[in-house]
């Protein structure tokens, strides 16, 4: 490698070509420039012996940085460090796997001292840590610089290849044959063209020299992979740009239309379904023992706000733009925004009740009204009576001073205080406490409270006849709303990587050089991969030319594939 390569050598080849410093094999004739011994060892054919850009006398600071990233050795170190760094992040779960924890205490509590150390070292967020990102950035730099440094010389070398190569270049290839032949040299070469073409080679001749080449594009495979990886990394980086990315977990009670923050969209969960496998769908061993979910589905409707958006004093005007039955593996998708099934809760949430005002003495009903849990009407009429809603408690309770309060904003134990006016009631009305849920009614002793408020002559009651008077949101679906505008570029990068992999790994660049000099045929052949296949191909070719050889005997340098 570069370390062992003397930088100052006479780079003018005997064929007259002036080579740049660092050239290993003459750019024109391929004669090995560095060692003039008659060694028969296979040549180092990487980049066809061209000087890499980085190999230059008198490096300045820019060159030094450039050379650092241009080194494959450094690239391998970076790969290995990233590999080791990644494994560290899998020892304990990362912070990002939890929605709601305090990492400063969680790791110590859950994993003891080891967890504490893990957290202190910052390994609980390995993949966002400065050193890990720095490694990725350095890999990106290495990808760019390594590729640039090699692809241009390689392109030049392959673009203007001399057909006639120095004899020592040929005999020091890994696949070599030297044979006496009786025929005229030019005629033999001319006869070799057709068989090689049949094998799929592009053949060029120059008198008694021949170059056959195929699948050169395979040489670009690695660089295509690297370009793909660079695009991939840039796309990942671009995801962080403002406006390109959104990620929110939102709660959708069945039947409610919920605004999606930072967008003009609203989403309604029309119906959430969870299904489990029936016993007959399960294997014998599981029946009656295990419950396996079969389906989570949210029937969702997406609305777009068309007018009065963002102004909380007005009701937004909504137009339906999309609807989809969201399942795991099947999100709703609209103009780059996606809604994923994330979680669910089957606890019913009370939305409204429609109680009747009745005379408990006579059983007479004065009529009913709808009482919403959220933003209820303040005034109701039932027959001759008017009910004024004075107070409302979503989760009824008493504070330290014994006063009624709401313990949460969720309608877990709702209670309402009415002031009822009408016939046979005091002029300034009668107060009435109403608990819509039956069990709250008993627990908080609604009757006793009202007896106290209304006195002995009290005869009015609010009652819900049957379940038709109660409106529940049966369940709640948790959806994950996402926008990721950089994804097309991520996939493009991944696709290019794949293309490069296929080109680079499933085809091989093969070249066969032939020269016939003074009745002696010299054959050298080179491939970047799969010497076995090349030898087989050369053998097949030679057989057509009536030269029989053993595949193994073509090999030069003893088994170094």
């Amino acid at each position, binding site marked *: 490698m570069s370390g062992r390569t003397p930088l100052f050598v006479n780079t003018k080849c005997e064929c007259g070509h002036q080579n740049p410093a660092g050239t290993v094999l003459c750019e024109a004739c391929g004669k090995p420039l560095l060692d003039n011994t008659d060694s028969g060892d296979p040549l180092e054919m990487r980049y066809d012996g061209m000087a890499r850009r980085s190999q230059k006398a008198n490096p300045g600071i*820019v060159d030094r940085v450039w050379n650092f990233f241009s080194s494959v050795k450094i690239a391998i170190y970076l790969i290995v460090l990233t590999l080791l760094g990644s494994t560290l992040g899998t020892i304990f779960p990362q912070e990002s796997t939890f929605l709601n924890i305090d990492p400063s205490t969680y790791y110590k509590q859950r994993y003891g001292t080891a967890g504490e150390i893990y957290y202190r070292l910052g390994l609980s967020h390995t993949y966002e840590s400065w050193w890990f990102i720095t490694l990725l950035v350095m890999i990106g730099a290495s990808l760019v610089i390594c590729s640039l440094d090699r692809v241009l010389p390689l392109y030049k070398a392959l673009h203007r290849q001399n057909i006639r190569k120095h004899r020592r270049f040929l005999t020091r290839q890994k696949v070599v044959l030297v044979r006496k032949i009786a025929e005229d040299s030019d005629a033999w070469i001319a006869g070799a063209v057709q068989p090689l073409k049949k094998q799929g080679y592009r053949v060029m001749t120059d008198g008694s020299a021949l170059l056959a080449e195929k699948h050169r594009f395979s040489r670009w495979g690695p660089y295509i992979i690297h370009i793909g990886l660079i695009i991939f990394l840039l796309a990942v980086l671009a995801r962080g740009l403002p406006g390109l990315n959104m990620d929110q977990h939102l709660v959708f009670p069945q039947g409610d239309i919920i605004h999606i*923050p930072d967008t003009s969209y609203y989403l309604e969960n029309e119906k959430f379904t969870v299904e489990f496998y029936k016993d007959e769908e399960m294997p014998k061993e599981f029946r009656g023992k295990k419950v396996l979910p079969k389906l989570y589905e949210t029937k969702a409707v997406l609305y777009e706000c068309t007018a009065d958006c963002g102004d909380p004093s007005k009701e937004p005007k909504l137009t339906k733009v999309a609807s989809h039955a969201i399942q795991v593996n099947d999100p709703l998708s609209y103009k780059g925004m996606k809604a994923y099934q994330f979680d669910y809760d089957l606890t019913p949430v009370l939305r409204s009740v429609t109680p009747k005002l009745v005379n408990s003495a006579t059983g007479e009903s004065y009529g009913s009204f709808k009482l919403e849990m959220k933003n209820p009407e303040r005034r109701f009429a039932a027959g001759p009576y008017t009910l004024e809603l004075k107070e409302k408690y979503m*989760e009824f309770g008493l504070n330290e001073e014994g006063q009624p309060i709401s313990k949460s904003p969720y309608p877990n134990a709702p209670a309402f205080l009415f002031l009822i006016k009408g016939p046979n009631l005091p002029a300034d009305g009668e107060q009435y406490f109403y608990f819509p849920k039956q069990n709250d009614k008993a627990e908080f002793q609604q009757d006793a409270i009202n007896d106290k408020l209304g006195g002995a002559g009290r005869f009015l009651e609010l009652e819900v006849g049957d379940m038709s008077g109660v409106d529940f949101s049966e369940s709640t679906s948790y959806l994950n709303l996402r926008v990721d505008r950089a994804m097309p570029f991520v996939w493009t990068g991944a696709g290019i990587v794949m293309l490069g992999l296929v080109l680079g790994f499933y085809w091989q660049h093969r070249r066969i050089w032939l020269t016939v000099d003074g009745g002696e045929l010299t054959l050298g052949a080179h491939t970047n991969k799969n010497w076995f296949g090349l030898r087989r191909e050369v053998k097949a070719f030679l057989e057509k030319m009536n030269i029989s050889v053993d595949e193994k005997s073509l090999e030069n340098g003893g088994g170094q594939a």
Partner: protein
Amino acid sequence: MGKARKPVQIIILVLIVLLGGYAIGTSAFGGDGKPEEGSRAPSFELLGLDGKTHKLDEYKGKPIVLNFWGSWCAPCVKEMPALEAQWEKWKARGVVVVGINVGEDQMTVQNFVNGTGVNFPILMDPEREAVRSYGISPLPTTFFINAKGKIDTIHIGQLDLSTLDAQIGKLVNR
């Protein structure tokens, strides 16, 4: 590339430094997107109890005490008198106290305000949008925002009169 070699190298290295710096900066030091002390206060657009829509922008140039509260949250209720007293004390010097109710409906908020005699502006956040953009988890949480719109201090938990006074004083004298 030939003669353009050096400039090309420099351009590529500069690009790598810029993009890399950006990557490291945003990923490793970008925090989790929640506003922190020193960062700009996120804007909001919420309905006030007065029936009008209010934005953060309308208080531009004034120090703001932004208090997130709920009627069910006992410490929120307890700190209301202190907030009211400080509002009375400092409003002449341009300080604005704004209470943002979290997730309750108008009736509850109105009843609560009537019951406690709070006079500073109260906004309602039924969809919890400001809650999300301010990254609120426990209530009460109070943001002290300076006249430039930057968050000076974040206080989580109940405030007493003296801390509140000291904080506002600090805000005004900046």
